[in-house]
């Protein structure tokens, strides 16, 4: 009986999702203090407890879980599609000079047309639909994926490729066994940036397309003047990203690039 408890205690403060809670305790305390001093009217600047109360009520009504699920699903679908297209395209551009010459100008051109700049025309083409939102997210995710995958394969030392050639590896085996693992630090950076940008693009798209989701909830709250819901939305966004980072990205880094000594271990 004693050991699981000890293990749980050791796990609790050390878990990456909770290790960073300290600064937030302070931040919430300062927030509560400023609210209690009543410098600003409560309706404009609600406190932590007000937000917690609205959180409870929106969870109870089922609105928050549904919206959260909608937003996360949109991001996951968009990010997956962005990876499936972006990583191979990045590898191709990084390895194949003719592809580089063909795609590079196009990529630079379309990168300049930001995700939001597509929204007017997308609304005409696809209306207020999931297609519009998915397009925006894929569009945002794909550029950092391409750039980082292309950079990654070019950072693999030429001697590592030569070693594989001299051990009888075919071109495809070199890609799978040497170039992709070697590019992984950059591919993970691309994923991190892509997901981060995608998350922001999604909220913007939800505000404009506006049918459901966290972004919709926040924008919709302006009609009822519910500042507390807007703050709740902001907090949810922050926490969700923190969970994605600590729950998916960091563990992925630990078992790959940190384990292999390709990057120094995070402090």
């Amino acid at each position, binding site marked *: 009986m004693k050991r699981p408890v000890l293990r749980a205690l050791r796990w609790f403060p050390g878990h990456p999702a909770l290790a960073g809670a300290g600064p937030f305790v302070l931040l919430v305390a300062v927030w509560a203090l400023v609210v209690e001093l009543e410098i600003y009217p409560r309706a404009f600047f609600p406190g932590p407890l007000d937000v917690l109360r609205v959180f409870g009520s929106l969870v109870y009504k089922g609105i928050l879980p549904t919206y959260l699920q909608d937003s996360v699903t949109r991001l996951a679908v968009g990010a997956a599609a962005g990876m499936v297209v972006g990583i191979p395209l990045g590898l191709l551009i990084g390895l194949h000079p003719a592809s580089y010459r063909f795609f590079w100008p196009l990529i630079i051109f379309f990168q300049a047309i930001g995700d939001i700049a597509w929204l007017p025309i997308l609304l005409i083409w696809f209306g207020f639909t999931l297609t519009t939102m998915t397009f925006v997210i894929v569009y945002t995710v794909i550029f950092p994926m391409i750039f980082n995958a292309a950079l990654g394969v070019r950072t693999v*030392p030429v*001697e*590592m490729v*030569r*070693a*594989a*050639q*001299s*051990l*009888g*590896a*075919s071109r495809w*085996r070199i890609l799978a*066994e*040497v170039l992709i*693992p*070697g590019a*992984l630090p950059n591919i993970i950076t691309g994923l991190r940036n892509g997901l981060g940008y995608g998350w922001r693009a999604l909220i913007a798209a939800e505000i404009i397309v506006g049918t459901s989701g966290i972004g919709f909830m926040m924008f919709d709250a302006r009609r009822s003047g519910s500042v507390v819901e807007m703050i709740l939305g902001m907090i949810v966004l922050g926490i969700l990203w923190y969970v994605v980072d600590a729950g998916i990205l960091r563990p992925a880094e630990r078992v*790959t690039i940190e*384990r*292999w*000594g*390709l990057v120094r271990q995070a402090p």
Partner: protein
Amino acid sequence: MDGLVIRDLSKTYYDIYAGEHVAAVEGVSLEIGVGEFVAILGPSGCGKTTLLNMVAGFIPPTHGEILLNGRRILGPGPDRGVVFQSFALFPWKTVLDNVGFGLKMRGVPREERDRVAREYIALVGLEGFEHRYPHELSGGMQQRVGVARVLANHPDLMLMDEPFASVDAQTRMTLQEELTRIWEARQPTILFVTHDVEEAVFLANRVTVLTPRPGRVRETVAVDLPRPRTWRHLIEDPVFKGLVARVLALVRTPAA
């Protein structure tokens, strides 16, 4: 003829900064019989690594040809294993998987290639490190992996490009002794490139000295020292010292 035959090999580069053609290797002819250990010796920039890279098939020669067991070399292949100065191990693979890489590329099943890999890991003295990753090993240990990775693939020719230049002096002497021991036990054909005169004489049966850029064959010196060779026995050996002095003179004085 079996073994390696290099005929009138030249390599000219276009130097984009200087805006002119530069000859790195010029008219090199060389033969290495099966089971021979030949060292190519020359000062920095004499084109000895360029020569090795052409034999490995990494870069094409400008002129001349290279034959291995009668077949013309047109690109890299598993018949020529390369040990690099920078080790060039795969950081995402364990010692076992690095050493078994060549066998994996040939489609050898896991069990068999692990068995062979373990044999060569033992040969280079790394038992117990099979499941470590390269970054967890010292430089000397990493290069032992580099040697085992090539030997496990049974190449016809082993190419070594200053393989011990980036480890400390004590480790280097140990690795040199280990390499002579392995060569005596297995008799792989080795082309060993170095700028270290004592290393060349200690290891090889023949030392071919190149001239400064462009690299031409200056002279080949036979090394008839008895084996097994150890530094403890050779460091004060008059024959060894005489050979070193002779080769050093060839490296340092310009050709007549």
